[in-house]
């Protein structure tokens, strides 16, 4: 009897400890985010107040108006262009990375060819190189090619950053689909191409979508390389645009936070989509074992 009571008590203690740790970790992760979101709706003086004002006294949309150029105070930042640049660059690079990822992932999952292992390892190793380490050589090449401060320049960089990842993820999803399904489709009258589009592609769809969202987020949020390779409204993306709020002696925290929220919202929506897809997975009920 005492033993069960004791073990129940220790279980309870364990649970409390676990909750506490989780809470502490979540606090560390969430507070900065919360601070940014709160600050987006507060005036500068409240953001900079000492001691800090945790509970906002006045909330308004003034900061957003400022960013978009409405209202009395205006910040001369071309958010519209930045947003368009970000969208074009992130979408285009994601679509290209996905097309290459689907082809490459399928090849790695289904075919045997020479240097397959080495090639795959090479792709993964490339992924291990921090992007910023490439910034100088990329900058030199791009300036020779005239790709600095162009959308195309960034698109190429992001495609090459994302392709190893999309190949890796999509390869995993195709591997989960038994080869017998494609064979059955071929016996049923499909060409290899039809078997791919009608059977294997729909089954890998959630994996492909997940890879796409990850690639999009990488491109959307990337700052280091973009800050090196962009100059003007022709190519500057939203994260780089954030720097526009820093002047020589002052930083417009309120405006910066408002713009950060604008950047975060599409990323947040996409993250919810990816979560659904990753969890949903697929039940491979058609194949036993």
């Amino acid at each position, binding site marked *: 009897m005492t033993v069960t009571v004791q073990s129940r008590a220790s279980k309870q203690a364990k649970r409390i400890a676990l909750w506490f740790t989780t809470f502490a970790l979540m606090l560390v992760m969430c507070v900065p985010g919360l601070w940014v979101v709160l600050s987006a709706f507060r005036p500068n003086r409240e953001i900079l107040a000492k001691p800090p004002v945790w509970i906002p006294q006045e909330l308004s949309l003034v900061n957003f108006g400022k960013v978009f150029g409405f209202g009395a105070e205006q910040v001369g930042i071309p958010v519209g262009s930045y947003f368009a640049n970000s969208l074009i660059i992130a979408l285009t690079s994601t679509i290209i990375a996905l097309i290459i990822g689907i082809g490459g992932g399928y090849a790695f999952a289904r075919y045997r060819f020479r240097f397959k292992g080495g090639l795959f390892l090479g792709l993964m190793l490339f992924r291990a190189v921090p992007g910023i380490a490439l910034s100088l050589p990329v900058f030199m090449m791009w300036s020779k090619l005239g790709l600095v401060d162009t959308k195309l320049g960034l698109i190429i960089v992001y495609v090459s950053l994302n392709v190893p990842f999309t190949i890796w993820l999509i390869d995993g999803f195709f591997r989960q689909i*038994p080869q*017998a*399904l494609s*064979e*059955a*489709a*071929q*016996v*049923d*009258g*499909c*060409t*290899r191409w*039809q078997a791919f589009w*009608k*059977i294997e592609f*729909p*089954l890998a769809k959630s994996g492909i979508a997940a890879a796409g969202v990850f690639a999009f987020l990488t491109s959307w949020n990337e700052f280091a390389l973009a800050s090196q390779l962009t100059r003007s409204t022709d190519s500057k993306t939203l994260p780089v645009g954030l720097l526009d709020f820093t002047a020589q002696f002052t930083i417009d925290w309120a405006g910066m936070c408002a713009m950060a929220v604008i950047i975060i919202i599409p990323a947040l929506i996409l993250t919810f989509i990816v979560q659904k897809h990753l969890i949903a997975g*697929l*039940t*491979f*009920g*058609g*194949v*036993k*074992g």
Partner: protein
Amino acid sequence: MAEITLEKVVKRYGALGVVHGIDLTIAHEEFVVLVGPSGCGKSTTLRMIAGLEDITGGLVKIGGQVVNDLPPRKRNISMVFQNYALYPHMNVRDNLGFGLKIAGQSPAEIARRVTEAADILGLVPLLDRTPAELSGGQRQRVAMGRAIVRNPDAFLFDEPLSNLDAKLRGQMRAEIKKLHQKVRTTVVYVTHDQVEAMTLADRIVVMKDGNIEQVGTPMEVFNHPLTTFVATFIGSPPMNLLPGTIAGQIVRLADGTEVPVPDRLQRFVRDGMAVQLGIRPDDISPVGHGLSQDGPGAEVSLTVDLAEPLGMESLIYTRLAGQEVQAKLYGPRIVAPGEVLAFRLALDRAHLFDAASGKSVRAH
């Protein structure tokens, strides 16, 4: 007409030979079972017929036409896979109709033929379910339905029952046999289970190490195995093989026991020949408890080492000529270990194999 012919068919993966030039003709509407242990090349052979594996050498013909270079979709065959390979994202109806849809049939025609196939296999109540919502036996039936709905020249089965439990396997085996009686079509069926081979086949093809060991009706293969491999592979429990030497018309076994050479084999043996005497457990039985009590035989006294009662019969482990052999006792009699019984060897059904080549002496 869909006769399937293999002529000197070879399959190699690089240096590794998997199928070494086999010849086989499967008649129109015939049910042929390829049987053998894993790695014997039976599945590879089936996949070459289906077009899912390249053919390294030789010819595969379906209905007289060489199909070596035709993709699977142009061979007008259908296949049931070991893991069923149902399309997980489609319901049963769409799984069945997929091939017809690809072939460009009208929706009305697809619906008619899907219903027809579902009727034959009792799938009508399941048409709107997805494969994940089906039991193993139901999935198996859907896989068969998908095969028959297209009305192909031949069905190929690749170990279709190996994922089912023993009871269901028995049921499905009967269903496959009924299906073949209803839908008369050429069938090539691969299995490693000799019971499936015996029960289903019009003709059995026993394969080993990429070669065909023997082709024949189930009874031919069972009653007249051409090699020791076939003798021990077909039939359960397997045939006992006892080494011995021919002396005149006598087989002298390892411990000196002498057994007369069966009449029907006398003209095939020579003096001094090293042989293996093959005798099935069913043909070694305690006197009065065997299948055949007349005809030529030999009687020996043997000690029971172990008895496995199976109800109406018991499997007995004993020693004959210094070697463990299995024997069968028919009738509900309890046998105790250590009991000494008079056994009768039904020698008219015994076999003799050349010890060196493993081939039946009849083949020499």
